[in-house]
C-alpha cells in the first residue's frame, strides 16, 4: 500500500501537486464565497478566508509532509535544487570540491597503503597465531643458531609448527642461460607455520631435513608459470640448482603471499646443517644467522607460549649444550608475525596517517567556512523559503543535502586523486615497506572513501545549516540588512584560527623531519661513497670455507681479475658492507688481552670485517696510526688486525694500542690478533647508528671465510658503467657463483634514509597543502569582513583617516587571527613533536630553529593572504560607499 502510494505520488508528482493546489485553493475560495454570501465585501472576505485557513502554501506543505514517499520526493527536490545552486556559483563549487577532493584523495591513498600493512590480517589462516621468535643481543632482536632451533623444536609444548628460514639464491641451469633465483632455505615446518600448503604435490616432510639428504625443492606459482610453462608433470622431476639435482616436490598456490621474503620463488629443505656437530662449536651450525617462525597450537595462548620458551631458555639440559654466544641467558623476543614485519615502519606510517587526517580536518574547516560565507549571502533566500512554509528542519535538510552533494562530488574526484597518490606513495616507498604488492585502491579503500565522504558532507554542512536556519528571518527578508553578521563572523574567525593552528602543527612536524634529514646527511659515514660500485658475490655452500679452501682461492682470483678491468682504480672484498642493511651477523664479542679476556665494553660486540688489503684505499677510510693490512698478512704470518679510532681511544686512551692483542669471538681455539693499525670510524649499520667498533682482518688470517663477500670497486670515473665488465671478471674466476645486489655506494647511502625521506616528502606535501588552505581561509574571512565593513571604512576615510591606516587595520585583524592560531598550534606541535620523536635524528622535538622557521613562514604567508583584502579596503571610495547606503 505504502509503496503503491509512494510510487503514484512520485510518478504523477506534477499531477498530484496540481490537484493539491487546486483543492486547497478551492477550499479557501469556497470559504470566501460563504462570507460574501453572508454580506462581507469581496476583498475582505478573501483576506479573512486566507488568514483563517492559515495560508495556501503552508497547508499544501503540511499535507505533502504526511504523504507516502514524501521523504524521497523532498530529497529529489533538494538534490535538484542543490545541484542548481552549486552550478549557479561555479567558483565556490570548484574551490570547495577541489579542497574536499584533495583531502579525501590523500586520506584514501594513505589509508589504502596503511590498511594492508597495519590493519588487515595477514593472508593466512588464523594469522594471529603465527609468531616470530628471536634471540636477544644488546636488547634487540638477533637471529639464532641451528642448535637453538633444534632445542626449541624438541622441547616446546606450545607450537604446532616451528621452522627456521634463511635466504637462498641458487643458480638454475637448463634454460637459455643460467638464472639466479631468489629463494629460501627452510626447515620442514615453514609452510605449516604459515598455514599454507602446496597446490600441487606435497609439502616438506621431517625426513627432507636430513643432513646432505636428497635435495628437494618447492616452486612458487610464478616461477612454475614462467620457467616450466605451467606443466604439472614437473612435480617429481629433477632440476639443476647450483650444480646439484633437486627433485621438485610441490608448487605453491597462485595467491600465496610470502611476507617473510616477498621475492622468494623457490624453497629448498634444510639439509646443510649437521646435527652431529653439536659438540663442536666451531661450525656454521653455531652461527647466529637463522630466523624462526612458528604457529601456536589452537589451545595455547601467546602468554603461555612465551612462558614456555622462556622456561626452555632458563633451564639448559645436557642434550643441548650452549656456547656463550648462544647461551639464551637473555631469553627470547616473541612477537606476532604482523607486529614483527611492521615494527620498522609502524611509527612512520602512524605519523603519516595522523598528518593526512590533519589535512582532511583543515580541508573540512575550510569548506565549512566557505559554506558559512555562502550562507550569509543566501540569508534572503532562506527567509523567503521559510515564509513560504518551509520549517526549520526542512531548511536544515536542504542545506545538508547540498553539502552532501558537494562532498560526494569531491569524493568522486578524490578517488581519482587517490589513484594517482597511491602510485606516488608506492614509488616513494622505502624498501622495507612490507606487503607493498597488497597496496591498492581495493574495496576497503572504496568504503573508507565513501564513509569519510558521507561524514564530511554532514560535518561541513551542520554548522552552516544550523546558522542559516537560526538567523532572524525578518531581518533576512530586509534587503541589505547587515545587523546579524556578528555571530557568523565569530564562527568563521574561530574556524580560521583552528585552521592556522592545525597547519602549524603539520608544518612544525615537517620542519622537524626536514632538519633531522639534513642532520643525518651531515653525518660523516667514514668513507667516500662517490664513484664506488658494490656487489655481493655469493659462493655456493659446497665450497670449502677454510682459509686455504677453494672459496678463498676463488675470491683471490676474482679480485685479481677485477683489478685488471680498465677504469678500476682499486677493488677489494669485504665480509661486511657498511649501510647495506645486511643482517648484523658480522657482530662478534671482542676480548682484549689486557682485560684478561673480558668482553669489550662489557659484552659489547665488534663488527668482524674480513677485508682484502685494498679495502681502505677503495673506500678511502683514513689510516690514523700504524699500518694498513697488506698482502703479506697471510695464514702463516703473525695475525694482524686493524681497529677503529673510537674503539682504540676508549680502550687505550692516550696509550699506544699498537702491539696489543685482541680476540674476536669467544672460541678458545680462535687466534689472538695483534693490533697493527688504527683507522677512522665507519658507520657500519646506519648513519644514525652509534655502534662503530670494528675489527678488520684478512680472509687468510680468519678461522673461516664467509660464504658471501661484498665487492667494492673504486672507479676512475662513473663506476656503474663498469658493471658488466666487473661481473664478467668475477665469472671468469668461476662462472657458477652468484652476483647479487649490484648498487653504487651512493645509492646505498640514499637507501638508508629512504624511510625518513618517504615520511618527510609526505609531511612536506601535507604541510604545503595545509598552509595553502589556511591562507585561503584567512583571505576568505578578511574579504568577507572588508565587504561588510565597506561603509565603516568609507566613513573613516571621509573623516580623514589615511589609507595606510585602513591597510594596517585590516592586516592587523588578519594577523591577530594568525597569532591566536599560532599560539594554539604551538602547544599542539609540542604533542606532535613528541609523537614523531622516534623519527627524529640529531635534534630535540622542541628544536628552536624549526619553530622559528615555521613561524616566520606562517607570518609571511598570512601577511600575503591579508594583503589583497586590505589593499582593496584601502581603495574604497568614500563617496561611492556613502552614496550607496
Amino acid at each position, binding site marked *: *500500500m*505504502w509503496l503503491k*502510494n509512494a510510487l503514484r505520488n512520485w510518478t504523477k508528482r506534477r499531477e498530484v501537486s496540481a*490537484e*493539491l493546489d*487546486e*483543492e*486547497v485553493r*478551492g*477550499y*479557501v*475560495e*469556497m*470559504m470566501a*464565497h*460563504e462570507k460574501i454570501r453572508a454580506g462581507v465585501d469581496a476583498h475582505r472576505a478573501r483576506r479573512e478566508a486566507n488568514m*483563517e*485557513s*492559515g495560508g495556501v502554501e*503552508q*497547508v*499544501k506543505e*503540511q*499535507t505533502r*509532509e*504526511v*504523504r*507516502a514517499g514524501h521523504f524521497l520526493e523532498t530529497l529529489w527536490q533538494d538534490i535538484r535544487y542543490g545541484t542548481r545552486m552549486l552550478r549557479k556559483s561555479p567558483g565556490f563549487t570548484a574551490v570547495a570540491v577541489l579542497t574536499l577532493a584533495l583531502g579525501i584523495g590523500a586520506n584514501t591513498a594513505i589509508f589504502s597503503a596503511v590498511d594492508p600493512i597495519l590493519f588487515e590480517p595477514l593472508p593466512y589462516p588464523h594469522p594471529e597465531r603465527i609468531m616470530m621468535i628471536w634471540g636477544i643481543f644488546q636488547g634487540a632482536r638477533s637471529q639464532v643458531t641451528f642448535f637453538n632451533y633444534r632445542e626449541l623444536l624438541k622441547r616446546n609444548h606450545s607450537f604446532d609448527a616451528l621452522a627456521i628460514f634463511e635466504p637462498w639464491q641458487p643458480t638454475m641451469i637448463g634454460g637459455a642461460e643460467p638464472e639466479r633465483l631468489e629463494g629460501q632455505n627452510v626447515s620442514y615446518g615453514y609452510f605449516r607455520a604459515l598455514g599454507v600448503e602446496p597446490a600441487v604435490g606435497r609439502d616438506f616432510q621431517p625426513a627432507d631435513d636430513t643432513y646432505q639428504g636428497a635435495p628437494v625443492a618447492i616452486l612458487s606459482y610464478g616461477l612454475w608459470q614462467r620457467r616450466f610453462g605451467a606443466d604439472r608433470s614437473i612435480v617429481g622431476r629433477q632440476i639443476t640448482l647450483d650444480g646439484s639435482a633437486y627433485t621438485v616436490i610441490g608448487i605453491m598456490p597462485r595467491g600465496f603471499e610470502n611476507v617473510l621474503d616477498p621475492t622468494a620463488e623457490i624453497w629448498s629443505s634444510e639439509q646443510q646443517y649437521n646435527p652431529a656437530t653439536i659438540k663442536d662449536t666451531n661450525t656454521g651450525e653455531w652461527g647466529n644467522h637463522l630466523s624462526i617462525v612458528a604457529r601456536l597450537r589452537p589451545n595455547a595462548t601467546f602468554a603461555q607460549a612465551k612462558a614456555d620458551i622462556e622456561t626452555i631458555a632458563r633451564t639448559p639440559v645436557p642434550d643441548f649444550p650452549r656456547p656463550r654466544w648462544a647461551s639464551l641467558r637473555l631469553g627470547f623476543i616473541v612477537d606476532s608475525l604482523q607486529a614483527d614485519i611492521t615494527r620498522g615502519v609502524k611509527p612512520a606510517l602512524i605519523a603519516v596517517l595522523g598528518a593526512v587526517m590533519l589535512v582532511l580536518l583543515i580541508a573540512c574547516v575550510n569548506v565549512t567556512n566557505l559554506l558559512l560565507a555562502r550562507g550569509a549571502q543566501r540569508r534572503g533566500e532562506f527567509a523567503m523559503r521559510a515564509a513560504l512554509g518551509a520549517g526549520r528542519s526542512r531548511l536544515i535538510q536542504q542545506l545538508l543535502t547540498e553539502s552532501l552533494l558537494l562532498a560526494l562530488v569531491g569524493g568522486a574526484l578524490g578517488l581519482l586523486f587517490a589513484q594517482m597518490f597511491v602510485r606516488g606513495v608506492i614509488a616513494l616507498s622505502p624498501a622495507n615497506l612490507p606487503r607493498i604488492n597488497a597496496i591498492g585502491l581495493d574495496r576497503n579503500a572504496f568504503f573508507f572513501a565513501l564513509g569519510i565522504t558521507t561524514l564530511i558532507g554532514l560535518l561541513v554542512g551542520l554548522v552552516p545549516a544550523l546558522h542559516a536556519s537560526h538567523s532572524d528571518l525578518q531581518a533576512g527578508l530586509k534587503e541589505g540588512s547587515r545587523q546579524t553578521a556578528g555571530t557568523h563572523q565569530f564562527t568563521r574567525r574561530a574556524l580560521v584560527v583552528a585552521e592556522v593552528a592545525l597547519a602549524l602543527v603539520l608544518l612544525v612536524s615537517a620542519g622537524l623531519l626536514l632538519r633531522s634529514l639534513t642532520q643525518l646527511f651531515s653525518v660523516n659515514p667514514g668513507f667516500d661513497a662517490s664513484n664506488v660500485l658494490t656487489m655481493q658475490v655469493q659462493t655456493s655452500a659446497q665450497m670449502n670455507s677454510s682459509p686455504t679452501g677453494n672459496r678463498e682461492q676463488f675470491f683471490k682470483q676474482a679480485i685479481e681479475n677485477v683489478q685488471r678491468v680498465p677504469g678500476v682504480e682499486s677493488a677489494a672484498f669485504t665480509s661486511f658492507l657498511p649501510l647495506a642493511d645486511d643482517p648484523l651477523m658480522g657482530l662478534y664479542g671482542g676480548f682484549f688481552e689486557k682485560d684478561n679476556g673480558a668482553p669489550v665494553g662489557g659484552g659489547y660486540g665488534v663488527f668482524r670485517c674480513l677485508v682484502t688489503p685494498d679495502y681502505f684505499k677503495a673506500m678511502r677510510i683514513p689510516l690514523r696510526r700504524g699500518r694498513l693490512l697488506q698482502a703479506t698478512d697471510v695464514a702463516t704470518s703473525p695475525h694482524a688486525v686493524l681497529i677503529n679510532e673510537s674503539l682504540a681511544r676508549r680502550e687505550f686512551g692516550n696509550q699506544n694500542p699498537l702491539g696489543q692483542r685482541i680476540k674476536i669471538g669467544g672460541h678458545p681455539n680462535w687466534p689472538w690478533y695483534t693490533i697493527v693499525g688504527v683507522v677512522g670510524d665507519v658507520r657500519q649499520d646506519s648513519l644514525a647508528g652509534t655502534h662503530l667498533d670494528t675489527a678488520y682482518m684478512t680472509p687468510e688470517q680468519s678461522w673461516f671465510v664467509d660464504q658471501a663477500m661484498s665487492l667494492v670497486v673504486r672507479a676512475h670515473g662513473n663506476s656503474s658503467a663498469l658493471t658488466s665488465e666487473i661481473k664478467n671478471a668475477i665469472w671468469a674466476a668461476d662462472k657458477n657463483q652468484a652476483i647479487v645486489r649490484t648498487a653504487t655506494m651512493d645509492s646505498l647511502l640514499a637507501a638508508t634514509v629512504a624511510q625518513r625521506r618517504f615520511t618527510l616528502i609526505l609531511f612536506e606535501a601535507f604541510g604545503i597543502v595545509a598552509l595553502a588552505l589556511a591562507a585561503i581561509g584567512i583571505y576568505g574571512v578578511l574579504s568577507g569582513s572588508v565587504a561588510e565593513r565597506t561603509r565603516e571604512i568609507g566613513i573613516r576615510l571621509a573623516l580623514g583617516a589615511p589609507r595606510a591606516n585602513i591597510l594596517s587595520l585590516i592586516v592587523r585583524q588578519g594577523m591577530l587571527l594568525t597569532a591566536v592560531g599560532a599560539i594554539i598550534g604551538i602547544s599542539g606541535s609540542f604533542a606532535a613533536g613528541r609523537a614523531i620523536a622516534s623519527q627524529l635524528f640529531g635534534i630535540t622535538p622542541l628544536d628552536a630553529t624549526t619553530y622559528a622557521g615555521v613561524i616566520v613562514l606562517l607570518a609571511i604567508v598570512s601577511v600575503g593572504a591579508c594583503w589583497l583584502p586590505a589593499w582593496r579596503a584601502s581603495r574604497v571610495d568614500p563617496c561611492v560607499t556613502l552614496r550607496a547606503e
Partner: protein
Amino acid sequence: MGNEQTELLQGTLDMLILKSLALGEMHGLGISRRIEQITRGTFLVKPGSLFPALHRMEEQGWLKASWGESENKRRARYYQLTKAGRRRLGAETQRWSRISLAIERALEA
C-alpha cells in the same frame, strides 16, 4: 504528556471525519462545516490539519476521492467512505464509547 494529547486529538479528528462522511460524499470545506455542526462548534478544524488527515486516510484506503462540482460552480474534491473506512468507523465508534464511558465513570466515582 504532550505526545499523548496529540495522539488523542488525531484519533478524534480521524473519527470525526469518518463520522461526517457516513451520510454521503463531501468536499473539504463541507467536512469542516459538518464537524463544526455535529460537535456544536466544539471542534473547529483548520485546513492545516484537515488536509493532511484527509490525504493520509486516503492513502490508508479508508477514503476515496473524486473530482466533482461545488455549490459555487468550482471543481472540488469529494471524499467518500470506502468499505474499509466504514469498518474503521465502526471500530472507532466502539472504542470511543468505551473510553468515554470509562472516563465518565471515573469522574463520577
